[in-house]
């Protein structure tokens, strides 16, 4: 069978995080009001900070929080959904219904609960809620990918390949992870959590800060506007090294990045910006920046959004790509005003203009050494204008 080679456009993007849920909110928070993480020991029996989406999503009634957040993202692309049938949906998450199970656990043990674990704990809860929300025939195939922090990178990898080969024409990609005791205390048990808000890619970094987050991308084989961003290359592999720590040599991370560049037919100098995985842990940031310094010259800027939104785990690839699209279209690459002591000359000290960013790279590296690199063509004008930060 001759393989088609369609282009893969991002015709819609959206995110929900501590930065906000609309483009205006996100840009306002990036430029002026860096979100503060929450610290409230009473909620999760956890004393260290974490980031939350400030919305209550009350308009979605009794829906569990993860489904309500997903619905809010889907509602923003109502026009697309209304005009298409049999839409494949690629979901990605690492937590599923853990939070609801935590809340019901004691009652379940005491046999005082009507909470069905098979309906609510696992990822089928979200996929079933998505499917039920629309008339029969609207949502087609729906799967959930879960590879910890690289989960939504795989949604992009699989959907982009299928569109490129002509197997499907479009797809909705969703990533969602909400805060739970299991993830907060679990990461803390590994001594990976910062006592204060995480400072990725700095000498002072002392761990990650978890964040609640979600993202949506619609991928299509045709663009809707001349400025639609485009998936140019995606690659994935595993370190084969350690269950929590990255391979210090960065060999597979390097391979993924080069593979993504090869697929796009571009070289490292064509990449103007890298949105790093950049969790803020000593090891992750060290290995990732060592790899990036090998591959890219000083022309390539590197930042991490996790100082704004925390680590949104399975949602991070898609959520952060969506935020990057907003950011790059605004003409700037943002850094927090208190950013200092970067660990690499590739990292700008402050907010800079996003000039001549023809391609940007998004890295995601998960437990089990699972790595994904996504290369995106921006189709932006070269002249990004004279806007002030």
């Amino acid at each position, binding site marked *: 069978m001759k393989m088609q080679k369609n282009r893969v456009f991002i015709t819609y993007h959206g995110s929900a995080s501590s930065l906000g849920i609309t483009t205006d909110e996100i840009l306002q928070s990036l430029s002026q009001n860096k979100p503060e993480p929450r610290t409230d020991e009473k909620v999760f029996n*956890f004393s260290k900070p974490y980031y939350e989406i400030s919305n209550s999503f009350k308009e979605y009634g009794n829906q569990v929080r993860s489904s309500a957040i997903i619905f809010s993202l889907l509602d923003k692309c109502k026009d697309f959904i209304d005009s298409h049938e049999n839409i494949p949906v690629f979901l990605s998450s690492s937590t599923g219904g853990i939070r609801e199970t935590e809340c019901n656990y004691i009652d379940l043990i005491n046999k005082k609960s009507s909470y*069905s674990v*098979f309906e609510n704990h696992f*990822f089928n809860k979200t996929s079933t809620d998505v499917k039920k929300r629309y008339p029969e025939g609207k949502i087609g*195939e729906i799967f959930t*990918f*879960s590879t910890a922090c690289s989960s939504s990178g795989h949604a992009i990898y699989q959907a982009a390949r299928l569109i490129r080969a002509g197997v499907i024409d479009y797809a909705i990609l969703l990533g969602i992870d909400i805060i739970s005791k299991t993830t907060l205390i679990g990461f803390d048990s*590994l001594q990976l959590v910062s006592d204060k808000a995480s400072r990725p890619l700095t000498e002072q970094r002392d761990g990650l800060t978890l964040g609640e987050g979600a993202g949506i991308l619609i991928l299509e084989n045709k663009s809707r506007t001349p400025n639609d961003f485009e998936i140019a290359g995606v690659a994935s592999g*595993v370190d084969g090294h350690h269950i929590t720590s990255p391979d210090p040599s960065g060999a597979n991370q390097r391979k993924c990045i080069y593979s993504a560049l090869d697929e796009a037919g571009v070289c490292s100098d064509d990449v103007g910006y890298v949105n790093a995985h950049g969790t803020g842990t000593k090891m992750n940031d060290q290995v990732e920046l060592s790899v990036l310094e090998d591959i890219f010259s000083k022309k390539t800027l590197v930042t991490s959004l996790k100082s704004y939104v925390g680590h949104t785990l399975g949602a991070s690839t898609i959520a952060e790509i969506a935020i990057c699209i907003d950011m790059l279209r605004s003409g700037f690459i943002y850094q927090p005003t208190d950013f200092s002591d970067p660990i690499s000359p590739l990292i700008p000290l402050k907010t800079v203009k996003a000039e001549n960013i023809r391609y940007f790279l998004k890295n995601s590296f998960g437990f089990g050494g699972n790595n994904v690199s996504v290369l995106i063509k921006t189709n932006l004008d070269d002249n990004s204008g004279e806007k002030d930060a």
Partner: protein
Amino acid sequence: MEQEFTYIRDIHFINSNVSSLDSLREMYSNGLFSDVKLPENLSQEIPGLSDNIKSPLKRRMSQLSLGVYQALQNGGAKNLREDDEIYLFTSFAEIDTSNKIIADLELNQSKLVSPVLFHNSVHNTPLGYYTIINKYHNYCLAVSDGINTGKSFVDLIKFLVRINPEFVIVAGDEYSSFYDLEVKYKYQLYPSFVSYKIQKNVDEQKGFFLKHENCSWEQIKSFLCDYEYVFADKESFIELKDKVNAELLTDYPIVGDAPISIITRLALPFILSLHGKTAVIGHFKGKYFLFEVVL
């Protein structure tokens, strides 16, 4: 246009009663697959899962991780190439580990959990251990949709075979006392693991393809007269008993109510060398599908 077939090879299946494909063939000869009875000696434990794993990491591996390891090592990854992609389908993933963590947090109000537990609770943990022990770097993906994971397999496989000439499947679920918390569904869940390599068959009209999907029960029944064998899930088997001319078989005795039973069921005609045409059927929420297997 000629139908494109896909072959299944390098198959391995494990549960508490089965450690080799010969045992499955013997079970078939003894009529085990001709009834929806679970063997009395089917167990929640699978002895010997950590045998032959030459790594101290095996002490940290759950039943799921051990089962996935053994299934891959003896099955789909037996002839693993550097660029083979590995797909893990698991309904409930590392649920026993997650259950231990949640129990500790909720019942003991713990502010820390054992550091070896948390990272073992993520869905790609089994693939992580497999690739770490063997120092592999293959593409790895875990797909998990709870009780809908069988449907996820059917939907994803029909896409993957169109773009990927060769890849590895591993599927399984472990036992956990977490299932006892369920208030609505009464499932007979026993641990089992299967792995195989899927390979496009360009030379022959042999192998499998997804012939029908999203059918009604009446439609599926009407298609079955074309087949010498029918391999069905438990409910369909009961409905079809004595109503089809084909030899009617079910995988239920070896997989129970596993949501991912279709993944084993699809491999059974290949394991048992059922020459001729086999219909492998299943259903999700009232919609039926049919894989045609020609050997």
